[in-house]
């Protein structure tokens, strides 16, 4: 893996080398594993993405970072895999995902459906600054990993892979309204976790 495989005429595109690709492997693996929750499948996806990147080195334009480029390849690979795998979870496991849901909602809202004082959302600071911080991303990964498996899967199909909610529902064989419920739960939980983990909390006045 010591040979630089930048093709001729691409010497002005620094950053493309097998070593550079391999150095991204750990980040790619975590990204894949968060979504697939299966180490072996995640490793296969990453391996295929790296091989695909090496084969298509000439299409690396160099105007985005190598990591962004190879992550796009990885995302496509994961989308293909999910489409081929088809319906891999049962509807009941999706609906049952997260038994603490009722308690969580009761803790946030009064019986009349309004925010309780200590849970009313306060503004978050500018995310641009947070996103420069390594700790922020650790919190983000941890929060995603703590979503119930299928809830997390639906959320990441929507927000990481950019699939339309309709396609996700169809693939998983669930109704549109269930899909919306799952995405709502995912966002509410993730927001709560990020708020707590990143110190974005406090009550605002309505």
């Amino acid at each position, binding site marked *: 893996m010591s040979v630089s495989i930048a093709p001729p005429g691409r010497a002005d595109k620094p950053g493309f080398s097998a070593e550079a690709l391999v150095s991204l492997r750990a980040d790619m693996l975590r990204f894949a594993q968060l979504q697939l929750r299966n180490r072996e499948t995640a490793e296969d996806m990453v391996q295929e993405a790296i091989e695909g990147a090496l084969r298509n080195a000439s299409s690396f334009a160099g105007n985005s970072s190598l990591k962004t480029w190879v992550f796009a390849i990885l995302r496509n690979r994961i989308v293909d895999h999910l489409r081929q795998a088809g319906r891999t979870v049962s509807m009941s496991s999706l609906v049952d995902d997260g038994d603490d849901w009722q308690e969580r909602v009761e803790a946030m809202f009064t019986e009349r459906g309004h925010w309780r004082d200590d849970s009313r959302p306060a503004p978050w600071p500018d995310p641009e600054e947070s996103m420069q911080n*390594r700790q922020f991303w650790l919190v983000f990964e941890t929060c995603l990993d703590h979503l119930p498996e299928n809830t997390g899967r639906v959320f990441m199909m929507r927000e990481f892979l950019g699939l339309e909610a309709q396609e996700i529902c169809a693939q998983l064989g669930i109704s549109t309204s269930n899909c919306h419920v799952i995405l709502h739960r995912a966002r509410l939980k993730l927001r709560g976790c990020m708020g707590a983990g990143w110190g974005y909390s406090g009550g*605002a006045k309505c």
Partner: protein
Amino acid sequence: MLTCKQVTELCSQEMDRQLRLVERLSLRSHLMMCSGCSNYRRQLFTLREVARAYADGRAVVTSAPEPSE
């Protein structure tokens, strides 16, 4: 009149489907009066922005390469 709980559901659906006119209007009138729900809605957009950045490989490296590999 929507409750805050219903508004959080609608704010999520807004990110996945086109809301009907009546939904948009009732959402807007609630948000004008409720800073908690307005903050919630902005936070959902922030989560989307953060998730996209992550999926785009723009996260600051979160771990050193695994030495075993």
